[in-house]
């Protein structure tokens, strides 16, 4: 089974998705509310840490070094995990990873799996696989819990329910928590939080298996790290008798010290916090004398197309630490939200990563849907040149004739003239005289053949008249 056959993406419908989301008033209200929070939060956190940019450089260096020696550090990591009594499973594809999870669950006759937030869980669609096998997945991250109730996918990699308003969450809680008093007051965010906490508390003790993601894996110690603000990850992984860590293999760093450096830029870039509320290290199963912990500790290392990016123009994408700063600052993401992108990873990081994982034919719109404003690269704590890599995907599309025919023809005509200055000047000179004449009364045009994409929403300013070059050549000066 190849990964693409397990992928359910609507990325090909990006344009329609975007149009729907632009018309979705709840989404627009939610996006407006989140925008200032993330952008101002990061700016303040950066300003409060004079060495922030030095740390970014160090963090980039750590990841570049690790990627250069990826096999070495992964093997070292595996050795340490095994030494501490854990198991490492290598999964080439999403289907492989699903199968490994199911096998572990079956081996302990699991009926319920509690989950901390994991984007790899989304990538391999683990909830679907569990449900198909008669196992109940329970999301314990508040945002993930909310979207699980609603049957939705996350719209953001760190704030999965950021697309929802408080009123929508309240409605979902009332619809699902029917055992509670109908007349309860649920207007305050805190009352929603309390209700979710009450419901979830009981569930923590019912699961046989806990699944978490990993923000970092540490070769030196064989540890995995998760950062959360709710502490749900800790309860998900400590109480059940089996803990499965779902991680993609580029999460590895050499040492604890390296992990600390990256953690210092992670939360600041993500939410503007200096550190997340909980930073939890897991190393192997419960040892003798430990008060608690799982009996089994498994790590599933997912590749799913990542090693194919090594050594290509997309390798730098593997530095990504999933902070979400790129999408928080992206005017396209801010316009359409995460669901429009049609697969697991939205925003600029998704526009580079998704074509690598599910194919540029499937996700080809995403790297095109950028104005190349460069804000994503500006705020990326790992200095990932996102616009440059989106352009590289466009080059791949152009080379393999995946770009739309109309674009190729238009570009071909344009480039024919752009490469021939005299013809260009003749042709454009005539066109501009024509446009100028058409717009002479109002100075602008409301409709121009072949420019509907422009004039649908804006006027086209009419040219002043003759081109600069023809006026200059005929001797006109200031």
């Amino acid at each position, binding site marked *: 089974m190849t990964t693409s056959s397990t992928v359910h993406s609507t990325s090909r419908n990006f*344009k329609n998705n975007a149009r729907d989301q632009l018309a979705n008033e709840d989404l627009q209200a939610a996006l407006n509310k989140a925008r200032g929070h993330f952008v101002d939060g990061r700016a303040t956190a950066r300003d409060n840490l004079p060495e922030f940019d030095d740390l970014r450089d160090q963090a980039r260096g750590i990841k570049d070094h690790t990627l250069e020696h990826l096999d070495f550090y992964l093997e070292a990591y595996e050795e340490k995990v095994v030494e501490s009594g854990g198991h490492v499973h290598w999964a080439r594809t999403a289907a492989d990873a699903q199968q490994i999870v199911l096998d572990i669950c079956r081996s302990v006759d699991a009926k319920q799996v509690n989950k901390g937030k994991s984007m790899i869980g989304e990538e391999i669609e683990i909830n679907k696989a569990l449900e198909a096998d008669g196992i109940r997945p329970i999301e314990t991250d508040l945002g993930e819990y909310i979207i699980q109730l609603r049957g939705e996918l996350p719209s953001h990699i760190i704030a999965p329910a950021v697309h929802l308003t408080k009123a929508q969450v309240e409605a979902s809680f009332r619809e699902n928590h029917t055992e509670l008093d109908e007349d309860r007051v649920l207007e305050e965010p805190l009352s929603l939080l309390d209700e979710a906490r009450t419901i979830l508390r009981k569930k923590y003790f019912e699961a046989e298996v806990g699944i978490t993601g990993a923000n970092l894996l540490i070769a030196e110690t064989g540890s995995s790290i998760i950062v959360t603000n709710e502490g749900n990850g800790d309860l998900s992984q400590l109480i059940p008798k089996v803990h499965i860590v779902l991680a993609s293999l580029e999460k590895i760093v050499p040492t604890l010290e390296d992990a600390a450096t990256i953690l210092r830029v992670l939360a600041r870039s993500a939410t503007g916090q200096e550190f997340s509320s909980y930073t939890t290290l897991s190393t192997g199963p419960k040892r003798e004398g430990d008060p608690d912990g799982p009996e089994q500790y498994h790590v599933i290392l997912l590749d799913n197309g990542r090693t194919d990016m090594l050594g290509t123009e997309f390798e730098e994408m593997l530095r990504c630490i999933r902070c979400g700063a790129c999408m928080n600052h992206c005017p396209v993401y801010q316009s359409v939200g995460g669901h429009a992108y049609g697969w697991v990873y939205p925003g600029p990081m998704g526009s580079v990563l998704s074509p690598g994982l599910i194919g540029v034919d499937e996700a080809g719109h995403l790297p095109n849907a950028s104005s190349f404003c460069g804000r994503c690269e500006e705020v990326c704590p790992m200095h990932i040149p996102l616009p440059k890599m989106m352009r590289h995907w466009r080059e791949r599309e152009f080379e393999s004739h995946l770009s739309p025919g109309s674009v190729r023809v238009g570009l071909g005509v344009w480039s024919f003239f*752009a*490469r021939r200055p005299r013809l260009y000047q003749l042709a454009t000179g005539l066109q501009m005289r024509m446009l100028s004449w058409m717009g002479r009364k109002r100075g602008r045009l409301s409709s121009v053949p072949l420019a509907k994409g422009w004039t649908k929403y804006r006027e*086209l*300013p009419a040219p002043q008249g003759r081109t*600069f070059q023809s006026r200059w050549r005929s001797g006109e000066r*200031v």
Partner: protein
Amino acid sequence: MSDGPRVALFVTCLVDLFRPSVGFAAVKLMQDAGCTVEVPEAQTCCGQPAYNSGDRKDTIVIARQVIAAFEEFDYVVAPSGSCAGMISKHYPELLADDPDWADRATALGARTHELISFLTDVLSIEKVEAAFEGTVTYHDSCSGLRELGIHAQPRSLLDGVDGLHLRELEDSNVCCGFGGTFCVKYPDISNNMVSNKMEKIVATGAETLLAGDMGCLMNMAGKLQRDGANVRVRHVAEVLAGMGDEPAIGEPQDGKG
């Protein structure tokens, strides 16, 4: 003839075609600063439409053409951060593996500047002689801001214009939604972005919007006019050159041209 540097004006396709007055303003500003300005004939476009559409091959042909036409000059100056960034940052990258062109691209890139930053950073101009009555606001175009670090330069020169009052634009560093072919490939998203921009522009209460890139200016002017907002839009060079009495972008030319 002045003894100042010999500068080639890369006029940019949008200024050439739609707003020649910006080209004349650029020439005036540089001549006033002591430069000899020439306009090489073999210029069309910097190649961004092809480059950003993934057509690397045609972009390289255009890049070589620009390098050959412009490399004899002391400097290349464009009234656009986007086109100047294309020549100074992207040409060297595009041609890095081409033994015949890599050094030429790098050398030209190092001598290529956006107009306003050329005046302030290279020629050390602190003040221009110009007057413009009214309140203006300023949008930072993305390429100029992020690729070339242009932020303080236009503000410092505008500060010296008689009668001009600058009122800062909230989110002036956020993209206006132009993005070259982006605005016609994804018109709905682009429209949302330029609508947000318009809201902030109108909120300043300024009568005039200035920026340094024709693409962004035409996008914002077109939107402001479509929605009936009473804000005039000009290229910053026109105001600095004392040519702020020309009809604004998208206004009738009064028989000129």
